[in-house]
């Protein structure tokens, strides 16, 4: 016992260093998988509040750009409302049918904090569980897909963005229907990669890439970007498809959170898939 105490006293600096280092590193390596410790992120009330004040100042830097984007979206929507159509046939009667059921609802939010040059980048939103946000919901903007909700508190939420290594959103090439998973190489905020496209297929340059709508996180057909180039993956029969994102995440502010009203139904159905089929 005395020897042990002597040992502790002799190496107390190193032991204390190792203890604190252990705490810090276990926080760092466990967080991306299990977001347990909410008060250590910008989703907590104190730091979230500070970020909101800061955002009140910096949001004006990108104001004109964001307004233009919103205006463009408005024009696109305005084209579809009844007042912009001419009636061709007055004899038609509109009947309220049961063929269409609403599947998705959208919750508007503003990004109040974000990083872009780290290996894994998280964005903070100013809406939380009180507005109906839940973990695992998809997030997109007027120009393209943004990420998936990672962590929610009462008034704030943290998004795992398209600028994290394993974002794994289901995407496909719009024309041909080839699908794969979205990944990020950790360096360039304008480009991502599409993983899982077999190299016996033809991938055309500048063809549009959209979400596939698998898993019920995103509706089908939300813009992701365009194919910039395809490279060969060594040792695997796959293309390494580089995508140029349609959204510039460095000046992004206004986003929508996707609420899938039929998600429980889809999950229940997919639970019935026998497990032994998977490897």
């Amino acid at each position, binding site marked *: 016992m005395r020897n042990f105490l002597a040992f502790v006293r002799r190496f107390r*600096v190193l032991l204390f260093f190792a203890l604190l280092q252990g705490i810090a*590193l*276990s926080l*760092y390596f466990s967080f*991306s998988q299990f977001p347990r410790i909410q008060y250590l992120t910008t989703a907590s009330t104190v730091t979230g509040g500070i970020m909101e004040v800061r955002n009140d100042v*910096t949001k004006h830097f990108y104001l004109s750009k964001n307004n233009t984007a919103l205006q463009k979206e408005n024009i696109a929507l305005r084209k579809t409302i009844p007042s912009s159509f001419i009636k061709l046939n007055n004899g038609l009667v509109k009947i309220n049918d049961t063929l269409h059921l609403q599947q998705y609802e959208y919750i508007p939010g503003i990004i109040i904090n974000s*990083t872009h040059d780290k290996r894994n980048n998280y964005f903070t939103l100013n809406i939380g569980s009180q507005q109906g946000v839940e973990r695992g919901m998809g997030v997109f903007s007027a120009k393209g897909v943004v990420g998936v909700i990672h962590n929610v508190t009462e008034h704030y939420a943290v998004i795992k963005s398209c600028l994290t290594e394993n974002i794994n959103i289901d995407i496909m090439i719009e024309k041909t229907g080839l699908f794969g998973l979205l990944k990020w190489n950790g360096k360039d905020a304008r480009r991502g990669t599409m993983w899982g496209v077999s190299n016996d297929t033809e991938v055309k340059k500048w063809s549009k890439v959209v979400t596939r709508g698998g898993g019920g996180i995103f509706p089908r057909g939300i813009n992701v970007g365009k194919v910039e180039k395809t490279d060969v993956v060594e040792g695997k029969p796959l293309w390494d498809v580089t995508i140029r994102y349609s959204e510039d995440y460095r000046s992004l502010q206004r986003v929508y959170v996707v609420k899938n009203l039929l998600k429980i139904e889809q999950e229940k159905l997919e639970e019935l898939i026998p497990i032994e089929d998977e490897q």
Partner: protein
Amino acid sequence: MNQAVKNILRFVALMAFQVLVLNQIEIGFGIQLMVYPLFIFLLPVEMGILMLLLLAFSLGIVIDAMSNTYGLHASSLLAFAYFRPLIFKLTAPRDGYDPLMETNLHTMGYNWFIKTFGALLIIHHFWFFLLEIFKLNELIFVLQKTGLSVILSFLLCLLLQYLFLNKAVKK
């Protein structure tokens, strides 16, 4: 001003500067500016290493909480604090440190500051980027990030000391 009050103010100021200003600046080439190690560096020489580690951990974890890095800053700042006494011993002047004097640029001179702070800052940045990327086959990229960021962070720390620290009266 009282030593403790001065250091608390410095803690808050450097933290706010790092989180609210520097974390938002993107230069490209993987450069990231970090000046908060200056707080640990300017603490009194005779301060115990356990206290140093504790302060480093708390400053790091506060910065982590505000930049969504979950322990990355805390870990690298701990390394900075752990190596501080060792490097200080290596670069000590011939007749030792004056325990009453603060070890900044003005009191110790350029030569000493570049050697000591430079070495510690390289350890801190290298540790940070190594953990952040955590892939050995991208070691070149880690070194590129470390090299470029250290130079700019160091210059920024020099500038901060010029602006905010009083020049010592020469005896």
